[in-house]
Each structure stands twice: as structure tokens, then as C-alpha cells.
């Protein structure tokens, strides 16, 4: 069998390096890399489930595509290069591949040091892919940190007027969280007496830890992963980072980086420390409800389109956290589905916000108005993204939110009224945004304004198409996710 994961890693590494060196032709190299990446991910899917159809039976036990090579050998500790995927990581890898190609196409017109820009975009995706496949603590942490650096430069060099402040805040904030997470992971390893940093070894030994230890360790991990989510009140890096980041940076930040937190919490938190997780669930619920409500309500008050979308991300990731915390199969399924959905939809929204900014020179909702006649394609895309984000059926957000809320009802009964009520607020801020920006008489439309250039249209159109496709056929993803050998899923 081909070592597919290593091949993908090599492809991305080589593609990234070539892109940095390619100068003016960087975008072509980046595009070729993205296409190759997508093809390889398709191969991984084929390998995993046959074809993601309705059958959902011929599955691989445990992690698929697993590779293990000894890396660092100490008398008391074994560090391996261990990688592998299951349904959960596979879905997020698919998201990575989709967002990479969409971002590259969307940014086709980037003229400020394109080699650096496209190289950093690829590097971010490389790191994210690594996080999703790493099954060794050290490897995981290296990839985790590898994502921060390119994002720091994307914000800091290609960003808006306050880019330095935002980049530094992003870096310091998430780095502190990373350290806490690393300490938590290493403490888990050492307290449990695991002799290898492999996921399987850590998982096996950590389950034996006493409940009180697990609960403290889980809190440390929760903080580390939670800042990435981000959870209220540790979220203030996100709006600033989004507002200042270039469009491609925002897309990857919302679409991928936030998912790292969710994935990490599921893989390294919930699975490794199940007892601690159960102990700390009240904290998770409280934080989740707070994030859901806070993200949505604060969105309503925003004037900057990007800031509004950023806060809506906090709301959606709060639902992800809630779904994870439910500790049910349906909840976990919903969480992964919602991460995928939010990845696509928030990417779409940030792209459209970027296009609004390029075309009309501002993202200020209070001064924009009536842009539809000038830019009908863009207006349609904004509308599609908003409707998907507020959970319209037949678009991707609906099956995910529906499953999450149903699981919440089953797990928590009337607490579901909080996220349900907030759905109205979420609808309100999107509809109000559309009313102000798309409809009414034209305001603040410069005479030079035009509809989106073709490459931006293609990049966003791709995501709109996927929003509809997976909205109508969520089974394409559901069957892959539920084949993961965790948490009461059908598994192998």
C-alpha cells in the first residue's frame, strides 16, 4: 500500500518550497500543488470507504493509512513519526484541500510579493494537514506551531492598517495557549507513565489516571485548544486578527485554524482523558452557552462586516463545543459536521467581505448600501453565504445545526432553548446586514465599482456549489464521520 499521508506531506512541502522560489509564477505552482493535494485526498477517501456512498460498511479498523517510523529513541521514551487518519480527520482534511484550492484561486490577482503570499498560504495548509494526521504528541505539537508562523506573517505583512498589533496579539495569545496545551499533553504522558508519545500509547495509559488528575489535565488541554476555538472570554484575538488579516488569511484563519482547536479537543482531549472530560463537562457547557450567546449578540452590534463575521464564528464554534460536550454519538457527529460546514461557509463569507472591500473601498455597514445593482454576483454570494450561515435547509449549515440541537435536546432537555433562541438573533444580524448592505438605494458606491473579477467569482462559486451539494447530500460526509472508531459510532 502506498504511504499516502507521507506522499501528501511531501507534495505539500515541495509545493510550498517551490512556490516560495517561483517568483511571479508562484500562483501557478500553488494551483498545481493544490490540485495534486485535492487528488491525493480523493485517493485517501477512496481508500477509506470505497466511495462515500450509502453503503458505509467496508471500513478500516482503527486508523487508516497508518505509518509508524522510529524517530527519537530514548531509554525511557519513544518518539515516533506516526500518522494516520480516521473519519473525523479525513473530513477535516477534505476541508483543508477545498479551502486551499479556493483560496489560491480567489487570490489569483495578489500582486504584493505573490511568491511569499502563496507560499505562506500553502504552508498554513501544510501545517493544518499535519495536525489532522499526526498521531504523536511531539509531531502534533510541531505541526500545531507550524501553523502559527505563516499566519503571523500573513497578517503582519499583507494585513490592514493595524496589522502589526493584530499579528502580535494573535501570535502571543495563541502561543501562550499552545504552551499550556503542550504542558498539559506532556504532563498527561508523564503522569500516566506512557513510554511512547504515540497516540495509541498515550491513550491507553492515560485512561487509567485517577479522575481528579484527569480533570485537571483536561482543563489544561481545554484551555489550550479552547483559545483556538475561540471560547469566550479568551476570544478577543480573533476579531482583531480577522479585521486586519488579508482575505486569504481570514479564510484560512476561520476555515482551518479554528477547526484545529475543535479537532484537538476531540482527539487529544475527549478521547485521551474521557473521565476528566466527563468531570469537566459543566465547565464546557457553561463556556459553550456563553460563547453561543456572546458571539451572536455582539455580532448584532458590529459595523465592520468582517468583525461581524468573526463574532458569528465564535457563536458557531460555541455550538461545536456544546455538541462535543454532550458526550453523545449524535453530538460528536454534529460537531464534526458543523466544523466542516462552518469551514466552508465562513470562508465564503470572508471572501465576500474581502470582495466588498476591494470593490467599494469599505466594509462599514453603516455607510454601505444598495450594492446589488452594481455587483449582482457579489450580492448573490453574500446572500448565499448568509443564508447558509443562519442555517437554511438545503444548505450545508442546516444538517449540522439540526443534529447539534437535536443532540442538545436529547442530552440537556430545555437548555436547548438557549441555542434555539440565539438562532433568531443569528438570523437577525445576517438579515439586517443584507438589508443595509445589499438592498435599499445605492450609497457609498464609487463610480469605478464593478462586479467581482472572474477569479474571485470562481473561488467563491466553488464554495457556494459545495454548500449546496453537501446541504442536499450530507450523507457524503456523515457516513465517513460515523465510520470513525470512536464514541459509539458504527466504527469498523
Amino acid at each position, binding site marked *: 500500500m502506498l504511504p499516502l499521508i507521507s506522499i501528501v506531506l511531501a507534495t505539500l512541502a515541495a509545493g510550498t518550497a517551490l512556490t516560495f522560489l517561483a517568483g511571479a509564477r508562484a500562483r501557478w505552482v500553488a494551483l498545481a500543488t493544490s490540485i495534486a493535494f485535492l487528488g491525493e485526498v480523493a485517493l485517501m477517501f477512496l481508500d477509506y470507504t470505497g466511495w462515500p456512498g*450509502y453503503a*458505509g*460498511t467496508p471500513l478500516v479498523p482503527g486508523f487508516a493509512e497508518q505509518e509508524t517510523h522510529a524517530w527519537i529513541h*530514548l*531509554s*525511557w*521514551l519513544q518518539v515516533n513519526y506516526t500518522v494516520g487518519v480516521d473519519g473525523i480527520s479525513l473530513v477535516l482534511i477534505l476541508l483543508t484541500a477545498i479551502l486551499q484550492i479556493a483560496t489560491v484561486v480567489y487570490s489569483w490577482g495578489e500582486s504584493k510579493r505573490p511568491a511569499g503570499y502563496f507560499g505562506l498560504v500553502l504552508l498554513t495548509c501544510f501545517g493544518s494537514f499535519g495536525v489532522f494526521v499526526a498521531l504523536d504528541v511531539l509531531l502534533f505539537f510541531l505541526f500545531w506551531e507550524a501553523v502559527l508562523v505563516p499566519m503571523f506573517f500573513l497578517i503582519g505583512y499583507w494585513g490592514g492598517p493595524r496589522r502589526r498589533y493584530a499579528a502580535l*496579539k494573535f501570535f502571543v*495569545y495563541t502561543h501562550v495557549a499552545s504552551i499550556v496545551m503542550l504542558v498539559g499533553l506532556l504532563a498527561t504522558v*508523564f*503522569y500516566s*507513565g506512557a513510554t511512547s508519545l504515540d497516540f495509541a500509547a498515550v491513550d491507553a495509559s492515560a485512561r487509567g489516571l485517577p479522575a481528579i488528575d484527569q480533570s485537571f489535565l483536561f482543563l489544561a488541554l481545554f484551555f489550550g485548544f479552547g483559545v483556538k476555538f475561540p471560547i469566550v472570554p479568551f*476570544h*478577543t484575538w480573533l476579531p482583531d486578527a480577522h479585521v486586519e488579516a488579508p482575505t486569504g488569511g481570514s479564510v484560512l484563519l476561520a476555515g482551518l485554524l479554528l477547526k484545529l482547536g475543535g479537532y484537538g479537543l476531540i482527539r487529544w482531549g475527549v478521547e485521551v482523558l474521557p473521565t476528566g472530560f466527563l468531570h469537566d463537562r459543566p465547565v464546557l457547557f457553561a463556556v459553550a452557552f456563553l460563547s453561543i450567546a*456572546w458571539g451572536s*449578540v*455582539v*455580532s*448584532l*452590534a*458590529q459595523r465592520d462586516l468582517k468583525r461581524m463575521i468573526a463574532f458569528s464564528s465564535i457563536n458557531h464554534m460555541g455550538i461545536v463545543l456544546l455538541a462535543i460536550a454532550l458526550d453523545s*454519538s*449524535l453530538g460528536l457527529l454534529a460537531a464534526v459536521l458543523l466544523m466542516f460546514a462552518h469551514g466552508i461557509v465562513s470562508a465564503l463569507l470572508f471572501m465576500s467581505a474581502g470582495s466588498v472591500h476591494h470593490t467599494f473601498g469599505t466594509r462599514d455597514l453603516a455607510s454601505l448600501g*444598495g450594492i*446589488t*445593482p452594481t455587483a449582482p454576483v457579489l450580492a448573490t454570494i453574500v446572500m448565499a453565504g448568509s*443564508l447558509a450561515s443562519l442555517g*437554511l*435547509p*438545503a444548505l450545508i449549515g*442546516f444538517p449540522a445545526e*439540526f443534529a447539534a*440541537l*437535536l443532540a442538545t*435536546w*436529547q442530552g440537556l432537555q430545555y437548555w*436547548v*432553548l438557549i441555542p*434555539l433562541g440565539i*438562532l*433568531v*438573533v443569528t*438570523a*437577525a444580524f445576517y*438579515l*439586517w446586514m443584507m*438589508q443595509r448592505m*445589499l*438592498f*435599499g*438605494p445605492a450609497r457609498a458606491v464609487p463610480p469605478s465599482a464593478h462586479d467581482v473579477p472572474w477569479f474571485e467569482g470562481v473561488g467563491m462559486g466553488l464554495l457556494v456549489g459545495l454548500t449546496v451539494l453537501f446541504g442536499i447530500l450530507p*450523507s457524503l460526509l*456523515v*457516513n465517513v464521520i*460515523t465510520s470513525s472508531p470512536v*464514541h*459509539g*459510532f*458504527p*466504527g469498523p
Partner: protein
Amino acid sequence: MVLGVLIGVGEAFFPGRTTNVQRLWLHLPPAPAWPNGFSLVMGTLVDPLSALVLIVVTVVGFLVVLYSIGYMHQDRGLARYYAEIQLFLAAMSALVLANNLLEFFLFWELVGVCSYFLIGFYYERPSAASAAKEAFLVTRVGDVMFLLGIFILFDLYSGAGAAGGWAANGFVFVHNGAPYLQGLQSHSTLATIAGIMILGGAAGKSAQFPLHVWLPDAMEGPTTVSALIHAATMVAAGVYLLAITSVFIGFTAFDDLLIVAIGGFTAFFAATMAVVHADIKRVVAYSTISQLGYMVLAIGAGFTSVGLYHLFTHAFFKALLFLAAGSVIHAVGTQDLFKMGGLRRTMPLTATAFAVGGLALAGIPPFAGFWSKDDILASVYSVLGAHPDYWPFFLLALAAVFLTAYYIFRAWFLAFSGEHPRAASLPHAHEGPWTMQVPLVVLSALAIGAGLLGFLPGIAHLLGHGSALSGIANIPPVYGLPQIGLSAVSVGLAGAGILVAWRMWGNGRVFTLAETSAAQPVRRLLLNRYYMKAAYDWVGAGAVYTVARAADFVDVYVIDGTVHGFERAFAAFSDRLRRIQSGVVSDYASYLVVGLLIVFAILLLVAPFVLDHLGGG
């Protein structure tokens, strides 16, 4: 569309036939969490219930599209218009045919978003954009309740709460030819809550009190849209939801009372507001809310088929009223009744059509509305003995008969009677092209005849048996003396309403209320729609937005401020640290010693502990 009519008519003539076709949409194989496996299906269920509504949707849909060709020909964005109308018709048909609650909800939301698009069709008008948002948001409140209702039902029947754990089929109404969700009454508390939640969803869609505020404002859309979506079909979806719920699931007694209360109250409440408005479309819109109230009342009282009968006749005469109003608006370019007048001379066909629609709405025999509305009143009356608490709502519904006749003929007299338009600036009115006239004629025929259709074997079968699956309550078959007496009362009330309207507004008269009249505050209250919209605006745009602003302030200055506080503290600390670098060697030496001591201390105290755990030392 033709297919839909065929299915509907076919159903009418093949009694008792139920066709259920479904296809697997999402399947989870058996697992610890769902030991029986779990499937969601997408299916079509053709039974008498859905066939009846399908006929309405397709017939009215066809006529409205035909009418649009003439009515909309001057507008821009026609491709968008027709695409959205078709999407709406597809979604509405699918909603009617859905064979499970999830599928129903999916298309329920899709028709809602089509309504949003079409209300905002003239999006450059701020009022249209605002009305579209309002409609979406208000119905969203209902939809959220509906969702909770679905969750509860799912849990009771298919989820972890059901006997045997997760059932293999979630949400399905009919499984292997038998109703799947039955016997809800046994879970009384949860079932009552589920029923209230479903009622909430229905109230949002069908504009029942207190979620009715969006419908009058939805008149910002083209008149054709008002006729099709906001009168004949989509707004009836809420009634249809109540109908299928009562057939397949059943409501508890408390829910029934609540439904009766909301229906009866809304029928009266909306009628009062229609009395004072000057906008021809709004008057008709309030009448829609009021008539939907009658249907809800009937379903609550246990007469599902009677409610659907009224849905059936109402769709035709209400579409007729809207299209006739559209014909007027098309001709004179205003919606203000007080600028019109004498139009019967220049637009005889439209005047006749509006009159036919008005007579049907008022419930004058033999027009369609009489048969169905009278059925509702007679049915509810027949159960008053068993349910004395229905009395007040029955009386409200009866009073609304008078108001209905009054306000619709007030509109007719204002627009069509008299010698000439009150506003001199009106263009010379004339009838629209044939594409607009044909639908008016066809719908007029239906508004006269649809009530009698109820006596035809085919339609009577659809109504009488409702759903072959459960044998819902039939139309009271015998017209005994009480029913005839009641009919006489209601027709008398309607006639009185028309007479009063004639005295006040007929023949070019304009009734003006004296400024000092004691009725002035009432008039203002009605014109301001009981201040409910203002109250909702205050809550939505005022209170919630203020909270949001406050939260935003806290976010920036308190939460992020704390972060900055840490940042400053660190900066100050590092500044201190920098000062230790004095450049004096002896200072550095002493730091070195202190540092080393600390390191040793750590090693001595901590290292054994760590090494113990590492197992390697």
C-alpha cells in the same frame, strides 16, 4: 404543475388510495448508539389531505404565473422573478407531499426563504427590504418553536426516549402503510409542549396572533406574490401543518383549546384592523389573517376536514381578490382607496371580479366562502355543549363575520362606486391584457363554484375522508334546525355589514369621523395595529440592540481591556528587569549566585519527583 393537478384529481376519483414513495436519504448502520440503525428518508406521500392542497397550489400557481405575464411586463429582473416563483412552487408542492416531519420542515424553510426573496423583490425600496427582513424574522421565531416540537416528537417516537431506543426510521408519518406517530396523548406533558411548539410554528407561517405582524407588511412584494404566496398557498402551510399534526399525531385537550383560542381571537382581531386601513392590499391582507384564523379555529375544535375545506375555497376567492386589486393598482398606479372611485365604469370586469370575491369572503350564499365558513361555524357550534370554554371564541368568530362583510365592501364601494376617482391625477383606467383577464374570470368561476364542489363526490371524498389513514372527523352531514338557524344568523350579519358599508361609503360617499368623536382613539389604535409592531420594533431594534451594544462595549473595554492590562503589566515588569542590567560586575555575580541557588533548589525538590514518574532516573 399539470402533473400536480392530475395527481390531485386522480386522488379525488380513486377513493382511499394512498401512495407513499420514499428513498433513503441518509442511513447509519447499526451501532452501539443506535442499535437498530437509523435512516432518514425523503418521500412523497399522496393521500387525500395532500391531494386537496396540491390542487390549490397548482391551480392558483398556474393562474398567477399567467397573470404575471401581463402584470409584471414592465418590471426589471423578470428572470429573477420567475425563477423565484418556480422555486416557490416546487418547494410548496414538495412540502405538501412530504412524508416525514424533517422533509416537511426542510421545504417549510425553503418556501419561507422564497417568500423573503419575493417580498424584497423591489429591493431598492427600503420599505420592501425592511418588510422582507421582518417576515423572515417573525416566522423564524415560529420556526424555532417548530424545531423544538420536532425534537420532542422525535425523542418520544424515534430517539433515545422511545421504547427500544432509536427507531430505524425517524420522523416518518407513515410507515408500512400505517401512521407511525400515534398515541401522543399518552405522554401528556411533553406532548402538550410539543403541540404548543408546533402551534407556534404554524402561527408564524399562517400569521396568527401574536406572530401576525409580518403579513400586512409583506404586501411590499408584487401583488401577484401577495396573491399566490401571502394569500392562497404559503400562508396556508401553517394550517396544513396543524391539519397533518392533528391527523397523524393528535393534539392534547389543552392544545386544542389553545388552538381554538388563537384561531377565534385572530379571526376577530385581524378583522378589526382591516376596518380602518386605506391601502387596498392591506385590507385584503388583514382579511387573509382573519380567514386563516377561521381555519385554525376549525382544526382546533377537531374538524380538520372543515378547516381544509375553507382553505380550499379561501385560496380561490382570496387569490381572486388580490388579482383584482392588482388589476386596479396596475391601472391607476396607487393603492390608496381614497384616491380611487367610480372604477366600475372603466373596469367592469375587475369590479365584478372583486365583487364576486367580496361576496365569497363575506359568506353570502351561494358563493364559495359561505359553504365553508358556515361549516366552520356550524361545526364549532355543534361541540359547544361538550366544550363550553369554546364559547367566547365562537362568538368572536361570529362577530368577525359582520366585520368581514363591512370592510371588504367598504373597499369595494370606495374603489368602484361613485362617479369618478376622488384624486384628479389618476390616469384613465382600463382593463389589463388578456393574460390578466383570463385568471380573473377563471377564479371568479371558482369563487362562485368551489363551495359547491364540496358536494361533488370526488372533492367530498377528499374532504370527508381527509386521510384514509385515520378517518378524521367528517363534515356534519345533516343540516338540522340549529345549523340552518346559525346560517341565517351569519348571513344576516354579513348582509348587515354590507348595508352599513353602503350607508357609509356607497355611491361616492366618504364617511369622516369627527375629530372630537369618542371613537378617534379607537381608530388610532387600529390604524397603529394595536401598537404591536411598534412594540416588536422596540424589543428588536431597541432593547436587543441596546443589549448588543452594551455587550460589544464590554467585549472591547472589559474583556479585551483585561488582556491589555496583562500586556501593560508584562511591559512594566520587563522594564524593571531591564533596569537590573546595571553594568556592574558585582551585581551580575550576585544575580548569578541567586539564580544558581534557585536552580539547585528546584532540582533538589522537584527532580526526584519528576524522575520517579518518568521511570528512567
